[in-house]
């Protein structure tokens, strides 16, 4: 009786749910040694996978929204585009690859529901059509062959080890577009004052002043397009700030802030780039842990989800470039400002994490330090800050052009 009631309750919940259209978001990005393609649904869905020489086909048992679209991935070294067509009220997603490939791993994660494929380039001649077992949903009984996963673990380790040193050689950087758009993010704003000094100077006002000065310099001297996350004293959420940068396809993201410390004596400028615990040094270690986690797919838990989130973070791809950008800006701040050099640092800044471009956060000086608070009131000091950040950015652009172009 109790079972019947549970079934009835489940069907009452599931039937209306199935009437809602499925919304699907597709992502593809390169990692050291493999390319990850993620199909993220706003709810779970059933699917079947087919593998061809340069195509991966995911057939759904229902229609996903938006229908009949083409998503291109110009920055991916392996994935060219994903074509979505609807036939017989069922969606078929065809992932077009730039070369023949192998499915290194495929698995399903929940909350949110994601079907993940790790693809690697394959030099071997393969049969035109080779069915791939659909990865099981956590409730499904069928499991993908564990053997395939174990084989690829070693392969991936080798590839990752090989690829770790590659970025140091300019010749092997992949080609990237010339920098045309820069996003400047003056921190805080509106009711979010940021740090407030003893003289009641608010961080939000200083960051806006410096942001505007920097914008002026970049536009007048470089002729580049500048997107500001805010141009007035209005509140912008952290997610909106990074969305503005991503949606405008900015190629550099610079967030301007003023620091504060529990130590009144703390002084100087700092430039941060993000630390994800999945940075290049940790990537191999993390990958190993991740591989272990996927040895038993039913054991995929929150911890593994966390690792997936870290991997998914767009900034992961740009860590080295962000580090270079931070280094150039900090060097210029050291030269132009007579503030103490606190150097380039890493921290998990929320505003930087999902930026799909080299992204840094500049802490000009300390509002909590009485001497630096006085400086921050001087327009000439803020001019110098803007000039230093501008010179740092221009040095990075030269570096970018020499390495990626």
């Amino acid at each position, binding site marked *: 009786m109790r079972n019947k009631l549970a079934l009835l309750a489940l069907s009452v919940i599931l039937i209306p749910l199935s009437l809602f259209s499925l919304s699907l978001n597709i992502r593809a990005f390169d990692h050291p040694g493999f390319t990850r393609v993620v199909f993220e649904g706003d709810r779970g869905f059933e699917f079947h996978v087919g593998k061809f020489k340069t195509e991966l086909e995911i057939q759904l048992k229902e229609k996903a929204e938006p229908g009949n679209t083409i998503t291109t991935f110009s920055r991916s070294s392996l994935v060219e585009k994903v074509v979505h067509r609807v036939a017989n009220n069922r969606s078929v997603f065809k992932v077009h690859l730039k070369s023949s490939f192998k499915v290194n791993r495929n698995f399903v994660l929940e909350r949110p529901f994601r079907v993940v494929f790790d693809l690697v380039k394959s030099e071997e001649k393969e049969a035109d059509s080779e069915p791939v077992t659909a990865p099981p949903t956590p409730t499904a009984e069928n499991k993908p062959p564990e053997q395939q996963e174990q084989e690829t673990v070693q392969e991936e380790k080798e590839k990752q080890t090989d690829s770790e040193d590659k970025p140091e050689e300019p010749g092997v950087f992949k080609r990237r577009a010339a920098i045309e758009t820069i996003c400047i993010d003056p*921190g*805080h704003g509106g009711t*979010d*004052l*940021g*740090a*407030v000094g003893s003289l009641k100077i608010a*961080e939000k006002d200083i960051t806006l002043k410096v942001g505007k000065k920097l914008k002026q310099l970049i536009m007048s001297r470089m002729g580049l397009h500048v997107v500001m996350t805010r141009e007035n004293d209005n509140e912008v959420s*952290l997610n909106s700030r990074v969305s503005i940068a991503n949606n405008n396809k900015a190629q550099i993201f610079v967030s301007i*802030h*003023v*620091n*504060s*410390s*529990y*130590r*009144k*004596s*703390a002084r100087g400028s*700092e430039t*941060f780039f993000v630390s994800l*615990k999945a940075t290049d040094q940790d990537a191999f270690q993390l990958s190993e842990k991740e591989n272990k986690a996927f040895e038993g797919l039913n054991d995929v*838990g*929150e*911890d593994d989800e*966390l690792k997936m*989130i*870290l991997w998914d973070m767009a900034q992961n791809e740009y860590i080295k470039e962000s580090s270079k950008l931070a280094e150039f800006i900090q060097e210029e701040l050291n030269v132009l400002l007579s503030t103490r050099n606190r150097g380039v*640092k890493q*921290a*998990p*800044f*929320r*505003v930087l*994490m999902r930026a799909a471009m080299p992204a840094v*956060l500049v*802490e000009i000086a*300390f*509002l*909590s330090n009485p001497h630096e608070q006085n400086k921050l009131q001087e327009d000439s000091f803020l001019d110098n800050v803007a000039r230093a950040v501008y010179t740092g950015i221009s040095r990075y652009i030269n570096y970018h052009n020499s390495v990626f172009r």
Partner: protein
Amino acid sequence: MSKKIIYSLVGLAVIFFIGSLLIFLKSGKEAKTKEPGILTQDNVREEVQVQELIKFKIFFLTEESRWMRPVQYEIERPVVREELYRRFIELLLTGKENYIVPVPGGVKLRTLFYMEKKQMLVLDFTEELATNFPAGTDTELEFIYFIVDNICFNFKEVKMVKFLISGNEYKTLTGHIDMENPFYPDFKFFRQDDL
């Protein structure tokens, strides 16, 4: 059978019954006291038995140095591990004279729990952590790593720390550092010579 014999038999039966009842009740009482007590907020202190002294090295901020400086502590080791963590957090929040505690005033630990499989300690602080926090990147980093690094340095079984405020996840404290994910220690505020 004479009445005397009947009365004697009834009397003996009554005495035997009362005796048995007393023995039964006594043994039941003894058995009850041997049952392990369930730890609740009310009786946890009774259950905590002092076994040994445990030494800690807690690092605090100072005005003079960018490094946190170590202070030695020695406390009695309670039986319950969570109680030990709780006492340790109290030491962090209380601080030491002439040292800076990078925690806003009024902040208290509401509760904590250790997730053994993930080796993660979850700390739930009171609302004051959000409402009284002085904005700034370094203030956030100082608070986070003061807690995380000190815990992970002193308790090797803890690999990461997650923060909650009044039972809820917070995106950031004052708009800088992501607080939704747990933190691994980085020991950047600790000087190598002091470890």
